[in-house]
């Protein structure tokens, strides 16, 4: 058992899989020699050598194309897209090629690859380096989508992603890289498609992802002091979506809140809200409330960024208001 930072957990997870399986490769910009811009790949180039840990040019399409072609022919690459905002420069390869290839070929092709990326805000990096874009990926059939919120989940979900024969988009939250948590020794393998109940509760279900999980938990603590007992679920995996866990909770509490870092329109919570409004309709005791960043680009000044990302305060207020409705 060791205290690991979230960023160390990334390289721990990758190292575990690279050591296990020689077909696993890592490619990306500045990931090798210097251990990555977020230091999530430190030591890997030394441990596995420059043929398995490849520093690339600034060519995101070439990077993902290389990963895709290699995945189709026997390797199991992990590719890094440095900031998730940069998915936009290689979106074609992700959504039109990687996501669709197996289907279009009627199953002739298998696509075991992972795309890891630094996602999300709170670091005052402005509109082009702070976006939460899991919802972009969730909207595209053929992509699996995970966002770990703890170092332990980072290791386990990375292992699960690498072992999965489908393409997995692995969203690391940049605002969590410095956070720490206990990670047991030995091999860790988690499962894709499973949400985690982080705090059981009976009055309302609060769904959160990534950086928002901690804020939701903090809000739950505060609400508990007022006698409101909130269940906080870390969604973890958007595709596959653990509707069993989510809908069971929603039906039980009768109240649904989502805490989404993404801008409002078509955040991941919209899909879950629409499922709940269908399948849990008769169990719902109050309107479904989505707590999101407003539908704006992210401002860079610290005071402004803090004002627009869902905060503990805002979660507390919105849940309180909703529950007493």
């Amino acid at each position: 058992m060791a205290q690991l930072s979230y960023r160390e957990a990334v390289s721990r997870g990758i190292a575990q899989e690279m050591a296990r399986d020689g077909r696993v490769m890592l490619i990306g910009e500045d990931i090798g020699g210097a251990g990555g811009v977020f230091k999530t790949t430190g030591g890997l180039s030394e441990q596995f050598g420059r043929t398995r840990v490849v520093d690339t040019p600034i060519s995101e399409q070439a990077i993902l194309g290389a990963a895709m072609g290699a995945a189709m022919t026997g390797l199991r690459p992990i590719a890094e897209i440095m900031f998730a905002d940069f998915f936009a420069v290689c979106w074609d390869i992700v959504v039109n090629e990687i996501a669709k290839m197996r289907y279009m070929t009627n199953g002739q092709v298998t696509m075991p690859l992972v795309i890891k990326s630094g996602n999300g805000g709170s670091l005052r990096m402005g509109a082009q380096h702070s976006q939460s874009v899991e919802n972009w990926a969730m909207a595209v059939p053929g992509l699996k989508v995970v966002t770990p919120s703890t170092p332990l989940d980072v290791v386990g979900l990375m292992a699960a992603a690498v072992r999965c024969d489908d393409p997995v988009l692995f969203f690391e939250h940049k605002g969590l890289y410095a956070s720490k948590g206990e990670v047991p020794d030995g091999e860790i393998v988690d499962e894709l498609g499973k949400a985690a109940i982080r705090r059981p509760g009976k009055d309302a279900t609060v769904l959160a992802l990534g950086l928002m999980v901690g804020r939701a938990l903090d809000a739950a603590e505060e609400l508990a002091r007022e006698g409101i007992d909130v269940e906080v679920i870390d969604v973890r995996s958007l595709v596959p979506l653990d509707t069993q866990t989510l809908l069971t909770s929603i039906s039980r509490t009768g109240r649904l809140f989502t805490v989404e870092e993404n801008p409002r329109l078509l955040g991941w919570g919209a899909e879950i809200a629409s499922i709940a409004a269908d399948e849990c309709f008769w169990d719902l005791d109050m309107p479904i409330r989505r707590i999101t960043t407003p539908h704006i680009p992210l401002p860079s000044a610290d005071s402004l960024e803090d004002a627009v990302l869902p905060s503990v305060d805002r979660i507390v207020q919105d849940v309180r208001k909703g529950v007493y409705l």
Partner: protein
Amino acid sequence: MTAIRTEHEYGAHPSVLPPAASTAQDDLDIAPAVRLDLYRRLEELRQFEKRAYDLFMQQLVKGTSHLSLGMEAISAGFGGAMRKDDYTFATYRGHAHTLSRGVPMAPVLAELLGRANGLMGGKGGSMHLTSVEHGVLGSYAIIGAHLCVANGAAWSAQVRGSGQVTVCFFGDGTTNIGAFHEALNYAAVFSLPVVFVCENNLYMEYTSIAEITAVPSPAADRAAAYGLPAIKIDGNDVDVVYRTAADALELARSGGGPSLIEAVTYRHGGHSRADPGKYRPAGEVEAWLAYDPLTIYRARLARLGVAESELDVIRGDVAQAVDEATEEAKNGRLPDVESAFTDVWADGGSQWRN
């Protein structure tokens, strides 16, 4: 050669004419059996696509489709030169590249008809022909991406030390998209065993490549930007293509890295099913129709002493094969509706929730 008018229905642009008759290449060192094989390939590609065209006309092909009538020498030459386990990456204009790797005609035709016996069970269609079994790792319908993907297959072969070479075909218009640049630089930097083949048929969809490209040779004039030699060849002469292909494949296989080949050719028809091709000067079309890869190759084989009757036998055999494939394809049933829900994921299904 007739005089060339450069006007066409929508304006005017400079015509590009084919080279003079290619007798100069008669003494390329290519074995007679190889030459007959190349001829057979030309016939297969030509006759197959003529049949595909007829089936469009009969409204049996539903979606769009892009023929490479007139451009067969490139796929034939490469198909003849490639090793069985080499990889092909093609475009939406990929019938010929697919067939030339040994993929049978019937499933390709059935795929065009949207039948269950289609190469991808009707899920891919004309623009996405793929036969992993034959090394055809896909046909890609959005310009550019597949050059990057081809690098990946080449990287994998390099890592596995398999000696496989990846060949990636694309058009002249494709040289102006970003992915072309990324792919070429990447391949050169990592010395990947990949051969990039630009089929320069002088047009993107309706626009003359010369009008929207900063250099006269869209691929060859870019080679130096990746430290590669400029290779520009007659893409209608199957011997020239074969020889160039063999050299580039050998270079890649022996660790010499990528090549970029520009093969100049012409499509006889429009860009796709719906296009009459009226943006092309009439004289240009005529000149290229005359410089047909089959015509010039039959003439060469005749000069080299092959009996016309021998060639006619091949032609006849191919015709029969195309007829049989047509029957087989037409006899296919429609795909089961359930098949639309398979193979999104590796578990065979399409579930996104539990």
